[in-house]
């Protein structure tokens, strides 16, 4: 088995981890970690599968670079939303108190 395929298999497992985490965990921060894990899994499948024969393939590598940038963009937006949501929750608690 080539290293590419091995890492692609690991990617499949990571993707499944991420999906389960995204559905099962309720804390927003945990969901953010989960979708990052899910994304990393998909990236490993993309590059690993493309390099099954053992030669580097620049096309999926470039795609993963794009994907990493998209991931951090989504992570930052999600964190901003989660923090704002928490602030609203705190405000509400203060009002209720």
């Amino acid at each position, binding site marked *: 088995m080539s*290293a590419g395929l*091995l*890492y*692609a*298999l*690991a990617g*499949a*497992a*990571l993707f*499944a*981890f*991420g*999906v*389960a*985490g995204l*559905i*099962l*965990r*309720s*804390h927003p*921060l*945990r*969901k*953010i*970690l989960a979708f*990052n*894990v899910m994304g*990393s899994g998909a990236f490993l499948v993309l*590059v690993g*599968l493309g*390099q*099954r*024969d053992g*030669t*580097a*393939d*620049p*096309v999926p*590598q470039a*795609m*993963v*670079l794009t994907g*990493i*940038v*998209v*991931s*951090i*963009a989504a*992570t*930052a*937006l999600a*964190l*901003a939303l*989660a*923090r*704002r949501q*928490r*602030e609203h*929750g705190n405000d*509400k608690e203060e009002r209720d108190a």
Partner: protein
Amino acid sequence: MNLAFDLLLIAALLWSAGRALTTPDLFRAVVLFIVFGLLMALAWARLDAPDIALAEAAIGAGLTGALLLDALGHLRGPVRRKSGLIAPSTVMSSEGAGPPAFPTYFLNGLAIVLAVALGLALAGALLLLPEPAISLPREVAAAMDASGVAHPVTAVLLNFRGYDTLLEVAVLWLALLGVLAVAGGRAPGRAPVTPRSARASLKVPRLLARVLAPLALLVAGYLLWAGAHQPGGAFQAGAVLAAAAVLLNLAGLLPGGATPRWVLRAGLGFGLLVFLAVAAAVMGQGVLLQYPPAWAGALIMLIETGLTLSIGLTLAGLFLALSGASRQ
């Protein structure tokens, strides 16, 4: 022995990811996730993908780590509100209060069964896959001479599939817009007010920041220049720039804030505008993003330089906007 290395690395990857998602403590989860990012960078190095390893080290582990650590303090403590994906009342976890009800057990069980089935089906499918009919690496190699650069990944990123990159730069800029829209509109950004007691503890970070920031600038310049013929390029360079800004902000030397002035807004839009202008200008001679072969190298360098600046500002902005907004 190679196999031993791979298996060990994969085991560590799976373990850190799995624990990051299951450990009850959020802080531990974030640290495990940062470790996961570093291990991913090693995996990319092992997969002959140094460009991704660079990006993963700088963006995945570095910036994401800083963002998560910074957010941690704001998001911990008892959760008063559910934001479950399925429905607020049907999914709970150890982070919620109270024992889960029966439908929760059922739905959680179902989700686990589905995820396991997905993982197994994927593994089976990957093992059964025949060799692909098309070999893109060969196509890339054949077209390298006309691409204007000597490094295949850069050629794909900025020439063959440059259009993807154009949209991706827009995605990054858009995320900053969203963050500014959500975090902004409140107290204007000011340098974090540091109480006297805390000032002593900032001494070391300040020294570190003053030494590392110029170094980061140098590294960013190097990565940008290197991108034309070896791994590196605008994203990695921009990420290193952003990391320097984050360090300066942490050390109290750079104010955060979610209401950028126009010079900063111009800087944030600059890379995208240069990219768009080049994409449009070359249409006079051909089609969208078709560089004249003689100019390809220079145009790609122009775009990458603009992008490095804007990506650096944008990535830094993602951190500074949040960091400034929370310190009213």
